[in-house]
């Protein structure tokens, strides 16, 4: 099985569809690539008008996980080993985030790679994250913000003309009888 050599952050779902007001969960996974890791800092960004992060539960990858969901539009998750001499070399789940859908629309969950880090177990605690390998997740709430179905222009025009035409026909018939 192919395995990427670069360390990266991903979501367990590349797409998610949810009803307005409902909650859904999405997990953040860490691929160490070819490295042995000590820790990870993941900053997940999203449209705060569409989604609200309500809870973060620790995954099984790291023994210690902390988080911060106090800022709208952003979730911070840190995971690390307890013993600096130990490391993790297999892909795992850092944490699972619970989101609440706030309104119809569509948006993207992504990682802020300016600040997210994957820390290698070396003397320099090197950041080995490869931003181009990070994943995203497309979230659609309700109908995706489209309030009506696409309309056929031909059908619309026929209806626009036919309704006044039908009424006129009825009036014409009445006038024909009266006059």
């Amino acid at each position: 099985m192919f395995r990427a050599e670069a360390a990266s952050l991903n979501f367990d779902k590349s797409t998610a569809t949810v009803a307005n007001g409902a909650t859904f969960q999405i997990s953040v996974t860490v691929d160490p690539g070819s490295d042995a890791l000590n820790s990870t800092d993941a900053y997940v960004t999203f449209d705060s008008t569409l989604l609200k992060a309500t809870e973060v539960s620790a995954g099984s990858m790291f023994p210690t996980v902390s988080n911060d969901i106090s800022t709208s539009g952003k979730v911070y998750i840190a995971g690390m080993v307890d013993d600096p001499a130990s490391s993790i070399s297999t892909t795992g789940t850092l944490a699972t985030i619970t989101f609440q859908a706030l309104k119809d629309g569509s948006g993207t969950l992504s990682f802020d790679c300016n600040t997210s880090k994957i820390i290698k177990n070396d003397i320099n605690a090197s950041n080995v994250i490869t931003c181009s390998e990070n994943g995203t997740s497309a979230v659609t709430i309700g109908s995706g913000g489209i309030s009506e179905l696409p309309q056929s222009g031909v059908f619309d025009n026929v209806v626009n003309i036919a309704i006044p035409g039908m009424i006129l026909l009825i009036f014409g018939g009445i006038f024909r009888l009266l006059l």
Partner: protein
Amino acid sequence: MNNPILKKILAIVVGIAVFAILVFGYFAIFGTRAADFEPRDVIVSNIEKNSVRATWATGVDSQGVVEYGTTPTALNFFAPEATKVKTHTIDLTLLSPNTTYYFDIRVGDTKYDNGGVPWTFTTKGAEASVATTPTATPTQATSQPTPIQRLKISDGTNCTETDCAKIKTLFGKGCSTQDYFLCLKKPTTTP
């Protein structure tokens, strides 16, 4: 009124009048209104160092132009749409990093903005920021910028703490796990 020609002329005149009233009334009720062109659900997303994506919706098919610039009074750059649509998406590219931009949306001869001021966003750069996701209450444009919303969560690049245990309590508040392990692994001098 016994003249049959007069009756026919009268019927035609009345028919035309009724038809005109019906058509005018129908389109007044069900036809396209100016408000249908007003952008709603204006959202700026996919904010990168050099590009962003602007999306909005209109009640009818329309073809808009995003007018943007680095000051609210000089929206000198234009990003037109290629086709008429109800769900609009435009990528603004070739932007400068870490720069606040202002924009409005022009549909035909009408300019729409965020309640009298341009919408704003800030591209990514040394200092992270989030997009404003304005609620569309379009009016005629004036010249006051919308305040930029700054992040509360730190980017983990300002850690000045030297106590490893304290660094651990400051994750996401100025320190990162990288700072923690650097602290743990730094060489210690033996007398």
